[in-house]
């Protein structure tokens, strides 16, 4: 048994615990950039053939290089990264890429055409989540070795089974799944013929400016300079810490524990607006916020009702009061920044017109419907604003808040009535969103294409045909014209209310600059970050 003396002495010594407190260091290490960001969305880890979420796509963009990338200054243009030049045959079927010489992998070995062909082939063979970005061209495990092949040490030839718009193919090659991995490393570490998939989830084998040093899920990602990179990063170490709460990010920024806060909310941005110590960097992103109106609800089959709901909402008020500086009004299914997007915004709050449309639809007293939305800011606040707007025209909106995956699961099962969600394109070409929002060749449960149009029972054969036609159109001007018509048609007829598009606003401490934010996460670059 413990004696009284021992017990009391030990108790007293435990009071000394506060002595362990020490002053928090008000600076991050000089050789490291520390960013705070919510990184708990990572699922496919860091294999480019599987990576599909924002945080890991962004890391992949800094670990690997691709054949081509969009010009950061003008994303409607593509520039060569690994590809010194490329040619497309007149019939649009054969793409030949000349690979830049002298590029070295993290291992010090040279990057060759063999690595490029292997990387693209493995995306098709593994056919993991982003695999469709390449398999949609008709490549499959059986034909890919013939269709994607080397014709020299530094030449790769891609052959399409059928004609596709050239920019469509090129933009898909600039997606994360187009990252080039070192064939020798991937094969040396493969298990069960997985082409290195398990190993590459937690290791990197690229030629980008960084290499992956450590990743703890929902905690941190650490990158360090790739010693053989063509362009050496200005700061050799990047630490991305998982900080989910925007308030905690701002606190850490002010205390000097981090250099850059990546996910501040509108409230936090307001508190530091105009403060020269925390200069913000703003970049338009391609994420759209929309409301899906399930056409299984009888009222939503009436075009007047769809129009009435679109006229009921005060879009500008939402953007100005709830999401200032973070989301802006955008009513096209192609986000601003995607080639072919139009900036038309035909809907503004007009209560009288909305009520007249409802009356025209035979619903002068309105109706009751449920809106599912994410149970977090700013979605909850926006849902409440829309509820008030709808009430003004007699439509009673019951709000149903849920976890993001819960809302998505419900939408995928087509069990929602109205649901507010976000969508971002899988690649920079217009086909990504056009297919998602407009294409629904088969509305049955057995359909092979079950994206947003299918989930909403938006079955419009003319629109589906237009999506296919645009994807195959070789003339860029004609192609853009098809998309322009499609967007205007969609705005009027589709059971979707396109609300807003987002900005990414990153706030760095004074003296920290050079973070280049891309329109999609994998185009964000760390290598030019400098610390004074």
């Amino acid at each position, binding site marked *: 048994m413990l004696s009284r003396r021992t017990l009391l002495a030990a108790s007293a010594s435990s009071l000394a615990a506060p002595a362990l407190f020490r002053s928090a260091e008000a600076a991050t290490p000089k050789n490291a950039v520390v960013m705070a960001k919510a990184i708990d969305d990572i699922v496919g880890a860091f294999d480019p053939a599987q990576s599909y979420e924002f945080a890991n796509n962004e890391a992949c963009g800094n670990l690997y290089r691709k054949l081509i990338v969009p010009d950061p200054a003008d994303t409607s243009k593509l520039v060569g990264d690994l590809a010194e030049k490329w040619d497309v045959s007149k019939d649009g079927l054969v793409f030949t890429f000349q690979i830049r010489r002298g590029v070295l992998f993290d291992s010090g070995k040279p990057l060759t055409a063999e690595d490029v062909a292997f990387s693209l082939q493995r995306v098709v063979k593994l056919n993991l989540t982003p695999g469709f970005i390449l398999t949609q061209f008709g490549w499959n495990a059986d034909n890919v070795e013939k269709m994607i092949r080397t014709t020299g040490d530094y030449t790769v030839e891609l052959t399409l089974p059928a004609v596709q718009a050239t920019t469509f193919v090129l933009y898909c090659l600039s997606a994360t799944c187009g990252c080039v991995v070192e064939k020798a490393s991937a094969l040396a570490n493969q298990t069960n013929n997985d082409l290195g998939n398990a190993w590459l989830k937690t290791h990197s084998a690229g030629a980008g400016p960084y290499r992956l040093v450590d990743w703890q899920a929902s905690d941190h990602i650490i990158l360090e300079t790739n010693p053989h990179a063509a362009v050496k990063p200005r700061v050799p170490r990047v630490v991305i*810490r998982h900080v989910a709460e925007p308030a905690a990010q701002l606190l850490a920024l002010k205390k000097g524990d981090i250099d850059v806060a990546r996910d501040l909310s509108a409230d936090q941005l307001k508190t530091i607006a105009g403060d020269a110590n925390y200069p913000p960097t703003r970049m338009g992103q391609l994420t759209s916020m929309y409301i899906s109106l399930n056409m299984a609800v009888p009222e939503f089959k009436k075009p007047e009702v769809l129009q009435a709901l679109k006229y009921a909402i005060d879009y500008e008020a939402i953007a100005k009061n709830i999401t200032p500086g973070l989301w802006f009004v955008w009513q096209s299914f192609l986000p601003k920044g995607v080639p072919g997007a139009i900036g038309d915004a035909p809907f503004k709050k007009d209560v009288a017109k909305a009520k007249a449309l409802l009356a025209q639809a035979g619903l002068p007293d309105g109706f009751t419907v449920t809106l599912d939305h994410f149970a977090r800011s700013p979605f909850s606040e926006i849902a409440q604003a829309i509820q008030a707007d709808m009430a003004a025209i007699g439509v009673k909106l019951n709000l149903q808040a849920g976890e993001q995956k819960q809302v998505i699961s419900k939408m995928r099962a087509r069990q929602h009535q109205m649901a507010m969600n976000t969508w971002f394109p899988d690649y920079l070409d217009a086909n990504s969103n056009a297919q998602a929002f407009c294409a629904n060749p088969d509305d049955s449960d057995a359909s092979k294409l079950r994206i947003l149009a299918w989930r909403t029972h938006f079955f419009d054969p003319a629109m589906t045909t237009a999506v296919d036609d645009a994807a195959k159109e070789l003339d860029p001007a004609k192609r853009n014209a098809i998309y322009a018509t499609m967007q205007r048609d969609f705005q009027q007829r589709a059971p979707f209310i396109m609300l807003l598009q987002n900005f990414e606003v990153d706030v760095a401490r004074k003296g920290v600059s050079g973070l280049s934010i891309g329109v999609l996460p994998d185009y964000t670059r760390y290598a030019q970050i400098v610390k004074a």
Partner: protein
Amino acid sequence: MTGHRLRQALASLASVPVTLFGLVLVTFLIGRAMPIDPVIAIAGDHAPPDVIARVRLEMGLDQPLPVQFWIYLRNLLHGDLGHSVMTSRAVTEDIARFFPATLELATTAMIVAVLLGVPLGVVAAWRQGSRFDHVVRVFSLAGQSVPVFVLGLVCLLVFYAKLGIAPGTGQLDVAYEGLVPHITGMLVLDAALDGDWDEFWDAAAHLVQPAAVLAYFSMAYITRMTRAFMIEALSGEYIVTARAKGLSASRILWRHAFGNITVRLVTVLALAYAGLLEGAVITETVFSWPGIGLYLTGSLLNADMNAVLGATLVIGLVYLVLNLLSDLAYSLLDPRVR
């Protein structure tokens, strides 16, 4: 060990697999009843139907529920808890990585809670009705009433944000991130074993706030229970007899009264410790402490069912082991049980 005690120990041990089976079954069923499609957690919202179908097949979700459970159970018996979607690692590997962080936090908190809570409870009972007793009662009542997350946030606001005398969240400063070798998984201990005292002090400083918050919560409970047990013990006839015999106050207090409450106190401490290991979820979230609680929360939000089942199983196992140990402790401490 006598035959009776051996039989008791065996009976307690025999209940472990049955309880664990129940725990696995209930958690498994709750996991399957969740309104989130676990396939989305792996394949993502944009995945085409063929990928969704393949993942569903790979996860065995096309099988009837009893078959799914049988497969999980069979793998479990072979030590295979499956792979986590979130971390891309085996769940057993994840648990080995995350659980030591929780153990470090909970054990530190428990040591502080016991060393402060027990003496406070004893002295408060001895001086029942005094000003000291009132202060202890209010202090312990507040500890049990204030939610842990509120206390954690207030601590961060005061000691980190305002006063700047404590580090922020996480286990280490960025400068030391990834430098401490993984020996036991408990960073303070690992840093000491590594002989790097800068790392040690940094890890220890990061431990203070979350451990203090958890310790206060448990200390409040331990103090209140100790006080109540002691008040009851001090009113016993044997205490009157001891006083009549002229024994010293300290001997009466520690030898006779405290000695008689140790059995009940062991149960309280075991439950408090188990509660800390399990209840650290919120503290870990507030302080971004990469323990089993944070792992469990993240897994739940991502519908990562293998990870949820694995973490729940570990927490359940901890409860059972502590329960078993406290049962065994009874027979050692209480002559009537022998």
